[in-house]
């Protein structure tokens, strides 16, 4: 019986997570278009794109590229699975980092100057947000007494009450992770931008489709972290936290449309200042 429930939960996550990620990406495109007074694509557009890419000819320059892209996607899926099953947050963070490492390797495997530029910037971006993700996990441990994601549903009050500054820091690095405008240095989801797509310059067909699907899972995990800040024992908070995740995502869309891209140095310095001020102050207050 327990095995059956576990299988059903895993299946549910494997279906719901990409569906949610794809819909959010579609929503992002529609809302962006409306902000620019355009009509925009259908909300299912990301699914159409992926289906098309999956059937297109693949012309990868190196056989390693496809291998690394596949591994990156698998680890992203694994991260969301761990998170969705309410397991160890630290393990999620490590699996997530591994997914990023494989993505970076795929960028370096193609020998193209464009993807080299993008990959170097991707590394800078990882440096921008990675400390914050670790601080989030650590702060969560301090307020809930365990690294288990599932324990959030047993807390007496939402984590954001005791981790307000860490939450602000997380919101800040969210745009780095989701590659939204001031920080979309390594590749941009806007057409014809960021050195014609940086890391994914050389990817075609199924590889590009896998990168897109990975991004859906990344989005779900990133918003999952936001979710952790708002849930507690009360069932009403579970739905409210979902609404707040959506609000956080739409805020990212607004920022994406309102800011110009920054240089890598500023991105790194600004992120680290925000991370160490918010994270440091919050952890200090927590331990006073």
């Amino acid at each position, binding site marked *: 019986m327990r095995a059956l429930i576990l299988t059903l939960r895993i299946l549910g996550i494997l279906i719901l997570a990409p569906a949610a990620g794809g819909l959010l990406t579609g929503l992002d*495109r529609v809302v962006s*278009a409306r902000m*620019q*007074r*355009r*009509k*925009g*694509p*259908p909300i299912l*557009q990301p699914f*159409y*794109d992926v*289906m*098309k890419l999956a*059937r*297109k*000819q*693949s*012309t990868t320059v190196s056989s390693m590229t496809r291998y690394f892209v596949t591994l990156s996607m698998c680890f992203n899926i694994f991260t969301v699975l761990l998170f969705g099953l309410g397991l160890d947050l630290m393990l999620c963070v490590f699996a997530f980092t591994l997914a990023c490492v494989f993505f970076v390797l795929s960028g370096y495997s193609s020998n193209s100057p464009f993807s080299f530029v993008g990959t170097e910037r991707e590394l800078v971006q990882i440096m921008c947000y990675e400390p914050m993700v670790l601080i989030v996990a650590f702060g969560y441990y301090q307020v809930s007494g365990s690294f288990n994601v599932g324990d959030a549903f047993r807390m007496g009050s939402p984590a954001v009450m005791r981790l307000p500054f860490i939450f602000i820091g997380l919101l800040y690095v969210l745009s780095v992770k989701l590659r939204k405008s001031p920080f979309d240095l390594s590749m941009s989801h806007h*057409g*014809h*931008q960021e050195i*014609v*797509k940086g890391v994914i*310059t*050389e*990817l*075609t*067909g199924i590889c*590009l489709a896998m990168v897109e699907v990975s991004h859906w899972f990344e989005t779900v995990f990133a918003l999952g972290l936001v979710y952790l800040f708002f849930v507690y024992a009360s069932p009403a908070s579970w739905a409210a936290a979902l609404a707040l995740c959506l609000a956080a995502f739409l805020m990212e869309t607004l920022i994406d449309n309102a800011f110009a891209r920054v240089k890598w140095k500023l991105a790194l310095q600004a992120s680290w200042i925000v991370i160490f001020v918010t994270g440091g102050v919050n952890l200090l207050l927590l331990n006073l």
Partner: protein
Amino acid sequence: MKYAKKSPWILHYDGSSCNGCDIEVLACLNPLFDIERFGAINTGNPKHADILLITGAINEQNISVVKQLYEQMPNPKAVVAVGVCAATGGIFKDCYNMIGGVGEAIPVDVYVPGCASRPEAIIDGVVKALDKIK
């Protein structure tokens, strides 16, 4: 390919046009015509593109570039030649360096008429080209 019709990613290349047609191509992206309604993206990367949109009559200098862009695009793909210049050479036909149309360099699927082509016509051309990559 059912989904290819819903997600045409476009690569735009200026093969020595007067820029008139290029302005109209860009106009397709603005709020009035908004080609993204059809899922189209103006990608700058031949490896991601489905449709190559070329303006201008192509000269001896860029013929190799056009051929390379075309070869880098993964199948299925289509080429749309925008404007009279791209079709026959147009007003540049008698220039010593012009090869007289995109069709001289790579196979073209759809010719969009006009000098300059109207954005409506360009969108129409793209939709026609989609029939080829279905």
